[in-house]
């Protein structure tokens, strides 16, 4: 870890002013950034701690929730409104990391955490286009059991590791940003970029831009949601695949369907084409299987993760089946 200075931002303007330094990085709880610094992957010389900024979780006027970026993962998972109206969000958070990490980690930091590709972490001994643009990718022909099959590129097959983001994506969450050039609001699913041939550019955030809040719109009325995570051990493992789904039935037909996938892509992945085919269909396994096929139709696998599309398809069908059953 290289020497660095540490400051705690007193206010949002203070944070933005300090974050304008090109050598600066915003620091949430540090559950990922400090690891990255220890491993020599990130080497900021200025850390701006933003954990004193808003961590409030408040009702919005249109029936949603505004979540301060400094809210802890645990606080969000335990929030009564989240548990009642966005149960998939609560479930997703509780399926991730450990209680200790969730107690520390911030919601804003969760969104900006970086991939857990083991070659990305091996600074000395492995090639990685994310770390060193253009040097090559050791994961593509290496151990890639945990790697992505959707939205990946020949330059990078890393996944975004978050559970929470998958559920937030299913509820159409938006991200509030503030920077030297002002404020803007983007859909969560527009925050992360696909790797293409520039996998080192991971988000659309401009230098010094700060996540200030995450907004959840009001959930669809009478919809049910859940989050299912499949992994290599029962706890404390990243998703091989995960599915967040929201389903609303009306008169025996699917009125609204949202499917978000984790563990398969460089970002929380919304399967919008699959969702579209479901609307108006009868909620049966044949329809769910068709949707699942569409969701995985673009999958590009490597030998280590060739099982993922089938695993994802099966899990999507099972999740939708359960939600439909619960809705009947």
């Amino acid at each position, binding site marked *: 870890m290289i020497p660095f200075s540490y400051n705690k931002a007193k206010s949002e303007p203070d944070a933005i002013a300090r974050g304008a330094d090109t050598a600066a990085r915003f620091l949430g709880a540090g559950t990922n950034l400090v690891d990255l610094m220890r491993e020599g992957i990130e080497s900021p010389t200025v850390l701006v701690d933003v954990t004193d900024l808003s961590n409030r979780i408040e009702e919005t006027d249109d029936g949603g929730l505004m979540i301060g970026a400094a809210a802890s993962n645990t606080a969000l998972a335990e929030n009564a409104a989240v548990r009642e109206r966005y149960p998939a969000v609560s479930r997703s958070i509780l399926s991730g990391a450990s209680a200790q990490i969730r107690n520390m980690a911030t919601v804003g930091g969760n969104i900006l955490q970086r991939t857990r590709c083991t070659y990305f972490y091996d600074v000395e001994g492995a090639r990685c286009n994310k770390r060193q643009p253009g040097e090559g990718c050791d994961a593509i022909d290496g151990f890639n059991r945990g790697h992505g099959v959707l939205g990946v590129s020949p330059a990078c097959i890393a996944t975004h590791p978050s559970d929470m983001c998958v559920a937030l994506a299913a509820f159409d969450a938006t991200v509030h940003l503030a920077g030297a050039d002002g404020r803007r609001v983007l859909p969560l699913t527009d925050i992360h970029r696909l790797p293409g041939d520039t996998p080192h550019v991971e988000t659309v955030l401009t230098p010094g831009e700060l996540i200030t809040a995450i907004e959840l719109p009001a959930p669809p009325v009478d919809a049910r949601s859940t989050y299912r995570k499949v992994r290599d*051990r029962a706890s404390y493992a990243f998703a091989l695949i995960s599915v967040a789904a929201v389903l609303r039935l009306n008169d025996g037909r699917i009125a609204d369907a949202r499917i978000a996938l984790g563990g398969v892509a460089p970002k929380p992945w919304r399967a919008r084409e699959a969702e579209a085919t479901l609307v108006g269909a009868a909620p049966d396994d044949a329809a769910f299987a068709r949707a699942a096929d569409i969701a995985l139709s673009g999958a590009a696998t490597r030998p280590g993760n060739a099982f993922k599309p089938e695993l994802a398809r099966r899990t999507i069908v099972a999740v939708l089946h359960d939600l439909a059953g619960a809705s009947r």
Partner: protein
Amino acid sequence: MTQPSDKHAVPKAGENLKIDRREMLAGSAATIAGVALSGAATAEQPAVPVDARDPLIRTPGNLGAAHSRRDGPLKVRGEAKFAAEHKFPGMVYGALVFSTIARGTIRTIDTDAAEAAPGVVFVMTHKNAPRLAPPEPFYATRTGMAGSSLPVMQDASVHWNGQPVAVVLAATQEEADHAASLVNVAYDVEDAVTSFEDATAGADVAFYAGRDLKYVAGDAEAALAAAPVSVDREYSTPQQNHNQIEPHAVTVAWQDGVLRMHDCTQGVDMSAITMAKVFGIDPSKVHLTAEYVGGGFGGKTLWQYHILAAAAAQAAGRPVRMTLTREGVFRVCGGRAPTRQRLALGADRDGRLTALIHTGTTVKIAHNAMTEPFTEASHHMYQADSMHLEVRVGIMDMLGNTFMRAPGSAVGTFSLETALDELAEKLGMDPVELRIRNEPDNNPTTGKPFSQRALVDAYREGARRFGWRPRSGQRLGRREGEWFVGTGMASAYYPYKRFGGSAARITLTDDGKALVETAGADMGMGTSTATAAVAAERLGLPYEDVDVRHGDNKLPGSIIAAASQQTAAIGASVAAAHAALVAELAALAPEGGALRGQPAAALKTVDGSLALAADPSVRISFADLLARSGQTSISVEATAPPPTEVSEWSMHSTGAVFCEVKVNAVTGELRISRICGVYDCGRILNEKLAASQFRGGIIMSLGMAMMEYAQFDERNGRIANPSFGAYYMPSHLDVPEIDVAWTGIPDPQAPTGARGIGEISMNGPSAAVANAIYDAIGKRVRDLPITLDKLM
């Protein structure tokens, strides 16, 4: 006191000999090497140890009581000091730079930036390292404790991906770590053998622990071909790494020519001697302690980091603490080698084995003497008319593989016990019944009588506790909602071992208390707790009045906590020291009294007194004896008799494991819902510690079954998952309630009747899981670990 003239001379049983330490060590190592002492009974050395008539075997008194670990409160309070928690004045911190190629030469190594970095005291490379002798590896020499015989930082050559190529010393760990990242190395890369296929293309029969790993009886291939029922399968097991909770560490200082080491080794004495030889100093000039060790499992031996820390401390003139990062443990300290095995069984229609073929390949490095001996259990478990057991090994350019809990048998029982399950199915026979039908009367390969073996009892008790439903070839699995449920069983096996050279010193003080000292190690399994109970029982003192010291090479004996043998080794040492103590106490008894002049065998110690064995009411208290002689204490030291019991008897522990698994119909996710192990390990010395040991091994074996493997990248020989985040072991949620039980039948040939329990429970669960999976979903998986993609 006599000085043995022969290097291999051993003291007579029970004789109180304070023998020269170096001689004692030579004796011990000969046994460890498995060569000199086996079958060495002579006229002076009875073929049965003193313990064969051991009263503790017949009347164990309080042995077995569930004393809690003596070190528990200290550890909970953070007061137990581990290797990386000791401090020396002026101490600096070490960090390592690891190679990134598997084989080649360092062309240039630029340390300028590192040397200029804040806090840096010294940077060591092959260019400025002190000249050192290569370390002696385990099994290759009598006292070798190193994982490899490679010279340590003596030239520019690179032999594995991850080899230390530079050491940085700095005022803080953070400064050392940062400076290490600034060392720039350029290599001339040479072709390396880093794929299993390439390495084993020219594999040859392995030589391990003094013998070829090959055994042939009859024509097994012909018998297999002629057998009315047979199975013939291939199995594979992956490379695994050690992941003790305490990462490897050492704190060293050179003090007036003495190398002082706070270490985390399983064998203080062998580690100290190996270090002395590397540095060309007399072993008496090494003082090595390892009072607390945070897990060993075979991996806490002597690795390059020890030597590098001591060398850098010498060169820099500063004490050094070197704590490996978790990645460092994966780069520098070896683990279990991968294997590919063939297991073929032929049987007649009644299920009696006519052929047992267990062959296959594994890999090792050119610089160690450690081959994963995966056929071991197949030598000793089942009667078969013909056998072919053979391990072939190839050389790979990798970090030195090493011992890892139940080396050989952990992976060998996986294939043996799953093949038996397949055979039972083909025979239409219950797998428990198949095993009972092949239970041997004597050892199936050596013909020696078993000292004690109640495996059939273990099967029956396990089946009863678990609620095993006998089957006759059909699957009994069922479905519960989204989950398939199945049950399976397997046998467990582990040999009894006792290495020579162990010794103990007992000191009685005039307050009626005793101190027992040995050079043994306690990696958390409760050595001092068990030793105190054994000594208290023998001395006739309350458990609380016996103190135990261990983990210091200046203490008596050469004892290694390995091969599940330390309990037996210490037990025999304490018995020998006790016999010597009785003789010395008898000499202090009043002239003309009933106790004076009695042979030791006619005396016993009871209730803090020396007494006539025939009439314990004739007694005199230790305190009186000491007061009478004007001494405040009396101290005796004795070496355990050589382990001749193993040359006369077939001594093994066995067990039966039953488990229930659930396999998710959608995802293939595997959950273990119930598991039960019943073990036949001789006497259990402490039921609480034993239950914990058994459970721990079962958990480790479940990890082997379900998830654990090193991602050894065959392109460049580098391990890709060197962290707890990426190298999976069971989380609490993966572990069900574990039911353990034991027969508790004392082994009449083992000291205090106990055979050692550290490793047996590593064997069995992985096969029981695979067999239960088959029962659940009808799929055989012969490739570990059994991840969900193999079950979808």
